[in-house]
């Protein structure tokens, strides 16, 4: 990069790694949409970044010219680190064209310039000296100042036709130049192709389970999960809940059981705000708003946790609509960074395949996560208002709460689960 002659007037604006979510501490550059010297409009994408949650684009904060790019692709840096600098209007970019009347240092052919100044840019180059007897054939390697060997058209064509790596061909021409006969001799000396074409049959390769590089999303999920297990004192508590009323109500409203669980969780969190919290290091913060994360499976790719901000202000139907919207856009890879940030509590719901219990891993830096598994009909003992017991068929589920023993204890988690259960059974 050449230095700007106008640094005194240059106003450079930093482009930093944005804060993508409460838990996001760093981001990785996926690609640069602009290069040094490119013009960029405010809010135009300057680069793509990836965090452990989501891929997103970084908009330019101002209109100007990209003056510096400080972080390479595939490099991970902390939130707030300067990624690039933009020279704003009035400031000159990093590589301004020299003014037309500026002295051109190192320019050749000064002696051929007309008196009174250098030739204008469009003027024809001074005529080369007339070719002498031996002039026409000159060595090909250093013409135009190009480094490395240069190959004639026919040599390149033959090499391409036979898949020859020309750097492996010994040249016998002037200055070691590779000539037509050299590449032909190389092709000739190559092992003869077999007389018979090999059978195209190939046995099936052994199953390559686990082979190959993990996707970026898988690596990020893995790192996040490991970090959570190493950070939190995980403990899991289960409670059984009767979902019979929920099943009836959801059929009536046309919503999912998850929406009812979400609603019950919100109510329980209002009752026990100690669980609507984050713990970062030794800093424990209870949050006023309930920002409810809902884990959404992306199939083989992994999963993502969009966040319903202000879930405490939504009805069951409102929650259901938000879940539907976020899940749909998550699968379409259309979530914005804001929609995966700021969660205060998370619900995961893999129950559609019939599994009944799990020990979920807390999404850091939250302090608990609720797992909703399958709702199954079971014979259970029910007691009527007069205290008479009977066996009835009820739609039951087991709710699992993983909680961080650093932030709370088992009694509180049990009370919290009981609160949810109460909410669900009294819909």
């Amino acid at each position, binding site marked *: 990069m050449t230095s700007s002659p106008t640094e005194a007037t240059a106003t450079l604006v930093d482009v930093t790694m944005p804060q993508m979510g409460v838990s996001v501490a760093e981001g990785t550059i996926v690609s640069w949409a602009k290069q040094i010297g490119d013009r960029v409009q405010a809010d135009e994408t300057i680069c793509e970044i990836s965090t452990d949650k989501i891929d997103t684009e970084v908009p330019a904060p101002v209109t100007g010219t990209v003056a510096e790019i400080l972080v390479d692709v595939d490099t991970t840096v902390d939130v707030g680190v300067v990624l690039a600098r933009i020279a704003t209007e009035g400031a000159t970019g990093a590589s301004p064209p020299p003014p037309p009347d500026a002295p051109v240092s190192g320019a050749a052919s000064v002696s051929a310039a007309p008196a009174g100044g250098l030739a204008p840019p469009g003027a024809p180059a001074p005529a080369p000296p007339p070719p002498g*007897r*031996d002039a*026409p*054939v000159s060595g*090909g390697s250093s013409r135009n100042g190009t480094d490395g060997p240069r190959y*004639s*058209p*026919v*040599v390149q*064509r033959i090499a391409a036709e036979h898949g020859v790596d020309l750097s492996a061909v010994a040249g016998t*021409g*002037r200055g070691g*130049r590779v*000539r*037509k*006969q050299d590449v032909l001799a190389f092709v000739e000396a190559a092992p003869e192709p077999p007389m018979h074409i090999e059978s195209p049959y190939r046995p099936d390769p052994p199953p390559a389970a686990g082979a190959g590089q993990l996707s970026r999303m898988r690596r990020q999920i893995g790192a996040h999960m490991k970090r959570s297990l190493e950070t939190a004192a995980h403990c899991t508590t289960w409670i059984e809940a009767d979902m019979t009323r929920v099943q009836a109500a959801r059929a009536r409203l046309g919503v999912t059981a998850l929406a009812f669980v979400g609603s019950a969780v919100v109510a329980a969190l209002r009752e026990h705000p100690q669980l609507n919290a984050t713990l970062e290091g030794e800093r424990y913060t209870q949050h006023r708003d309930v920002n409810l994360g809902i884990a959404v499976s992306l199939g083989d790719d992994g999963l993502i946790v969009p966040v319903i901000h202000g879930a405490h202000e939504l009805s069951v139907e409102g929650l259901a609509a938000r879940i539907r919207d976020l899940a749909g856009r998550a699968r379409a890879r259309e979530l914005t960074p804001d929609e995966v940030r700021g969660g205060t509590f998370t619900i995961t719901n893999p129950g559609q395949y019939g599994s009944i219990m799990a020990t979920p891993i807390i999404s850091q830096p939250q302090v608990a996560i609720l797992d909703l598994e399958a709702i199954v009909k079971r014979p259970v003992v029910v007691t009527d208002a007069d205290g008479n017991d009977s066996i009835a068929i009820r739609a039951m589920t087991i709710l699992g709460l993983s909680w961080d023993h650093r932030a709370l204890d088992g009694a509180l988690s049990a009370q919290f689960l009981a609160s949810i259960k109460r909410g669900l059974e009294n819909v």
Partner: protein
Amino acid sequence: MATMTYLQAISSALRDELRADERVFVMGEDVGVFGGAFKVTDGFFEEFGPERVMDTPLAESAIVGTAIGAAVVGMRPVCEMQFSDFISCGFDQLVNVAAKMHYRQGLAVPITVRLPSGGGFSGGPFHSQNPEAWFMHSPGIKVVAPSTAQDAKGLLHAAIHDPNPVCFMEHKHLYRRIKGEVPEGIYETPMTARIARPGSDLVVIAYGAMVHTALEATEDIDGAQIEVLDLRSLVPLDVDAILDSVARCSKVVIVDEANANCAAGAQVAALIAERGFEDLDGPVIRVATPDVPIPFSPPLEQAVLPSVERVREACRDLLAY
């Protein structure tokens, strides 16, 4: 087959045509009683008479103009320029009248203009030129330039039979130096190129006297297989033969006896650059007469004309590239 000089082959073609076709007649300065400055038409006046072997004034414009008129009414005139250099006086008749007649009025002008050309005998600036490129630049004129006795006769027959104006470049230096077997009777040599010697490492493209220079220069250069392509016809140019040679040899030296600037060889080089690029293994090299008039002084003339040594050196240099 009879062994003839290049000059005898030209005479033979003319005589055969005069005997075979009543429409054919020859005209020019001193072609009659004197038998031609180079004796090409020696004995013609006696055999065919003044009506068919016409001495003309020293007026090339009149010679070409008369021939055009005769051709338009059905004759097959053959004009002799005493030296090709003198055609400049008949230039307007040739390039504006003869060459454009068919385009303007749909009339064929089957004239043949014999142009004794070339240097090498201290003829000086007015008697040594190779003006073929002047005519190549005028659409409507064919230009042929034989290098052998057999082709001289065959191409002259072809020129006389051709319905277009044809400039027949006959090289003075070959007149009595070159001999060869020549078939009996009338035959046409096609206006295409001829491989004078096949090869594979490099091709020298030439025509006229330079074919012999090229053959001599490349007889033995460290055992390299050097092809010599004799163009024979400049308009039409045998594009396929040229590109075929380039494809096989990949290195090209083009020799012109004419001044280098815009010569026939320049056209060939342009063709190769445009359509033979992918076959090239080195720069296309031209050997030609520098852009100066041909000097009288024998040593100076030898210094400017492409010599065997210059052609050999160019080939050696390009082979090593």
